[in-house]
């Protein structure tokens, strides 16, 4: 259980940085011993400043990704083909927003307020997953997102669910449970297009071609230029290297794409029988950094929609906070 009195109160940024230099060696040793034993760290426990900082960054970005990720898919609710697909998509988008709430709650236990996190998203200081800076142009894009992006997210989240921070792990357990439905409905819609008319197959192939690079970007830059230290792996903040997760994803999902007679826009993509790992052409990493720093096709639109929601929803939040106006609401 967490929240309320358990929540660490970060006094101010400056103080945190001073303190960072002085993590007490005995406490640090005891902390690392707990991690080594596989114990979960809970909100009230002592933790190294850098551990707290990295976890806030990680969970906060994950939360933003869930919220922003609902936008390209939400666009297609009105145009989903058929009532069942529409229901599934509404349910999925609702789940994603719920995941955002769960993750903001988990990040709050580390001492950053929800308001501060939202402000950092709106000002562009905090990032979110790069894939959501691309448009969903056709229904096939939605099925590729629902199948492959969610599959990639599960690879990442299932790894992180075994991490060392209790509240994040608990949120991820529930998220993974719901993501399995997202994956399944995405796969189902994907197969329907793949086994449908020539026009449907062509639309799907086109979407795959456009989304392949963002999907290869999804797990982040190659390990050889990763800035994140071995320390984070030791502390079980980062659970698997980017390349390992990418490889795990390719291993599980490339055969599922190929078995439907679809192709992927990378001639070099094949499993190397000697290393038992996948060979592929490196995606354009300059493009990755360009997009994450605001240069993607939809960065501006995503933030504008989010800012619009913040501004236009303000009067509702204010009205509900006003005790003079308060009255009981029916729950259902």
């Amino acid at each position, binding site marked *: 259980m967490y929240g*309320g009195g358990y929540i660490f109160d970060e006094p101010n940024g400056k103080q945190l940085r001073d303190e960072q230099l002085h993590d007490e060696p005995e406490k640090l040793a005891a902390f690392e011993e707990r991690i080594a034993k596989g114990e979960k760290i809970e909100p009230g426990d002592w933790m190294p400043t850098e551990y707290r900082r990295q976890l806030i960054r990680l969970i906060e970005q994950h939360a933003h990704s869930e919220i922003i990720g609902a936008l390209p898919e939400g*666009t297609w609710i009105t145009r989903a083909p058929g009532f069942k697909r529409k229901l599934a998509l509404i349910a999925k988008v609702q789940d994603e927003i719920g995941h955002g709430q769960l993750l903001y709650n988990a990040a709050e236990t580390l001492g950053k307020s929800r308001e501060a996190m939202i402000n950092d998203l709106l000002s562009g200081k905090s990032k979110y997953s790069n894939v959501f800076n691309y448009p969903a142009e056709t229904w096939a894009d939605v099925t590729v997102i629902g199948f492959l992006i969610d599959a990639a997210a599960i690879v990442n989240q299932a790894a992180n669910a075994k991490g060392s921070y209790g509240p994040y792990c608990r949120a991820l357990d529930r998220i993974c449970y719901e993501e399995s439905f997202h994956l399944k409905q995405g796969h189902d819609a994907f197969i329907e297009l793949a086994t449908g008319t020539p026009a449907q197959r062509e639309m799907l192939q086109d979407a795959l071609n456009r989304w392949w690079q963002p999907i290869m970007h999804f797990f982040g830059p190659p390990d050889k230029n990763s800035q994140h230290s071995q320390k984070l792996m030791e502390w079980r903040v980062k659970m698997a290297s980017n390349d390992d997760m990418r490889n795990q994803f390719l291993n599980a999902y490339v055969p599922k794409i190929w078995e439907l007679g679809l192709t992927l826009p990378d001639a070099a993509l094949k499993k190397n029988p000697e290393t038992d790992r996948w060979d592929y052409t490196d995606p354009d990493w300059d493009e990755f950094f360009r997009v994450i720093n605001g240069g993607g096709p939809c960065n501006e639109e995503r933030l504008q*929609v989010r*800012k619009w929601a913040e501004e236009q929803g303000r009067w509702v939040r204010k009205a509900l906070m006003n005790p003079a106006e308060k009255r009981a609401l029916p729950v259902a």
Partner: protein
Amino acid sequence: MSNDSLDPRVNRLKLGDATAVIKVEEGENWNIYEVFHQEKRGAHHEHVGCVHAPDPQLALVFAKEQFARRKKCVNLWVVRSADILAFDVEDEDMFANNLEKNYRDASGFKVMEKINKFKQSK
């Protein structure tokens, strides 16, 4: 903002400038409430997470959306996180206890042994 977005909402919202500064004030996102979920009547309420809400009634509404939309649920409790009183984590050792508690347990009393011994001695 041009009107060629694929998002039908964007085209009718007349969105502002992405560089405009929008700031959320501290406290604007309300209080945190812990949520307890009851799966069936007679079962314990189990803690499942939290929601943000301006008051308990609305916390219930949000909790219903967040935690009762999939799994079976017959009731929910919400309680303001700040109202929960708990021991300090550092005090965990006060729960350390004598592990030998046979005297509190049915298994700690072996009457049959005594009865058999009594019968044999007859």
